[in-house]
């Protein structure tokens, strides 16, 4: 699928989960070894069309995520290129130990896709939120953790993931009407962060849904003559060492922004990188609090938790003055 203005507008309306379904459908003809799995959330994961078009390459494991990941291990062992999907906590936590054994310990070529991670599930509430998933998945050896910035990046990532031999946790954030970061084609490589904006005063490193908010926050800061670089750190593990090195060499403050608990996510990964360095820079980690938050619609919760562009820009201003 071509990344152009018309397509990205249509994808943005669908949101990341609908686009995941389209992306996997579009790569299927090129990947006869593809097997897509769901735990009775196929229609909620944008997979209805895939299931109808490629019934032989779709396996519904029923409401049994642990077994789904275990079966994915057997399929991957026999050469299938497996994408196993569910909502974030049901993979990263319910089936965590199956992920650990099959993907971590045995390095099976499974891509788990966490639909609706972060707080995108809105009124479904904290039971359905993915606020600890990066912390859990990042701590398991051998697993690559990726959180795409927008719908176009979901396309790029699904394509790259299908050609990537190794276990991966794909985390989809945002809802329908997902803001657009990329409206034309670009070079995407797993593990290689992308600088979206250059500025001399500070660097914002963001992932997933927070990339767009951070770009907007950078616009707001620019109005105050504060120039921010913005980096799309779509791959949270392994962290792009070269990008981190370049960022710290600038000797400017670093701000991490993520739709994830402040514990264990991108902010922690950046802190872990910087801690042993002789020359560190100041770091403000913006994310969700260590709490199960009051539920509302997505935008309400982002604003309540200070993850909208205005709040992010205010937090950065305060930090720079402190």
């Amino acid at each position, binding site marked *: 699928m071509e990344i152009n203005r018309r397509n990205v507008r249509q994808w943005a309306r669908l949101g990341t989960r609908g686009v995941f379904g389209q992306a996997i459908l579009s790569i299927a003809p090129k990947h006869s070894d593809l097997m897509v799995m769901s735990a009775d959330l196929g229609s909620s994961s944008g997979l209805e069309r895939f299931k109808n078009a490629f019934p*032989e390459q779709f*396996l519904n*494991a*029923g409401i*049994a995520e*642990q*077994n789904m*990941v*275990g*079966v*994915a*291990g*057997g*399929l*991957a*062992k*026999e*050469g*299938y290129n497996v994408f196993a999907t569910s909502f974030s906590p049901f993979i990263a936590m319910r089936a965590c*130990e*199956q992920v650990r*054994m*099959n993907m971590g*310990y*045995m390095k099976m070529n499974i891509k788990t896709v966490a639909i609706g991670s972060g707080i995108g599930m809105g009124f479904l509430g904290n039971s359905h939120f993915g606020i600890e998933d990066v912390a859990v998945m990042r701590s398991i050896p051998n697993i690559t953790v990726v959180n795409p910035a927008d719908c176009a990046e979901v396309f790029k990532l699904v394509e790259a993931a299908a050609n990537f031999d190794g276990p991966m946790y794909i985390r989809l954030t945002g809802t329908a009407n997902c803001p657009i970061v990329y409206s034309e084609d670009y070079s995407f490589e797993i593990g290689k962060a992308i600088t979206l904006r250059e500025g001399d005063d500070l660097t914002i490193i963001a992932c997933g849904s927070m990339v767009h908010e951070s770009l907007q926050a950078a616009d707001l800061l620019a109005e105050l003559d504060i120039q921010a670089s913005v980096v799309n750190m779509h791959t949270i593990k392994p962290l792009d060492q070269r990008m981190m090195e370049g960022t710290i060499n600038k000797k400017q403050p670093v701000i991490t922004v993520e739709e994830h608990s402040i514990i264990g996510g991108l902010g922690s990964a950046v802190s872990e990188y910087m801690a042993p360095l002789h020359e560190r820079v100041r770091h403000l980690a913006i994310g969700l609090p260590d709490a199960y938050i009051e539920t509302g619609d997505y935008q309400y919760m982002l604003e309540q938790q200070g993850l909208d562009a205005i709040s992010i820009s205010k937090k950065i201003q305060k930090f720079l003055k402190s």
Partner: protein
Amino acid sequence: MKHPKIAETASFMRRKILDISYHSGTSTHIGGALSMTDAMATLYSHVMNFDASNPRWSERDRFILSKGHGVLGYYPALLAAGLITEEKFSTFQQNGSDLIAHPVMNLDLGIESSNGSLGHGISMAVGIAYSAKKKSLEFKTYTLVGDGETNEGSVWEAAMLASHLSLDNLTVVVDYNGMQNDGLGKEVLEVNNMSERFKAFGWHAIDVDGHDTDALVTAFEQSSNGKPKVVVAHTIKGKGVSFMENDNSWHHNRLTKSNYEAAIAGLTE
């Protein structure tokens, strides 16, 4: 006895179980290894199709040790089958060894998967069996599950999917020795009527004396009428060593020199 080779293999395995357990100098899962020995000997010396000189042969039958702590009943079967050498076997639980207290996937040694956490291997076996069906490959998939292991809910998730997918190329052996870490199964968590449970999940279930190798062969060879098959092997924990039989202190224990010598003497009597 119709299949003396199996009995010979089982006898060889029991001696090897005692040998490596003793020489490891540590506590090992010995009781459950002795209960599964006859089923494993039957699989590896009669039922399963593999080529010891080419352990990665794509058409080999697959075996997954879902009951991962049963390695003492597994490595000796691989040794008897020629998949691992005496030299490799003797490295059991030495620092840096490929052979530790739970299997670590190593296709060159015939070890198909890493296990240790219960309730995982059966799911992988379902995935492998389904893959064979999809690819129209003839090989069969076997997995051995402990009766205590069936406490794990994921075992029943896998059982549901296997019958839903009509995986008649999958055979589960339940090593039903009636005991688990904390004591008698019926006191910890009752899992009686095992074959009835599997039948209710849509499986072809066969109860056998898990130490009667002829009965095991018949069970393994029986048609399952398009369903996945479970062979519920009724076994005795510690089978073959009189002072270990049905004594759960041998679930995980260390053999002293005198224990070892008495056990070996008992085997040869």
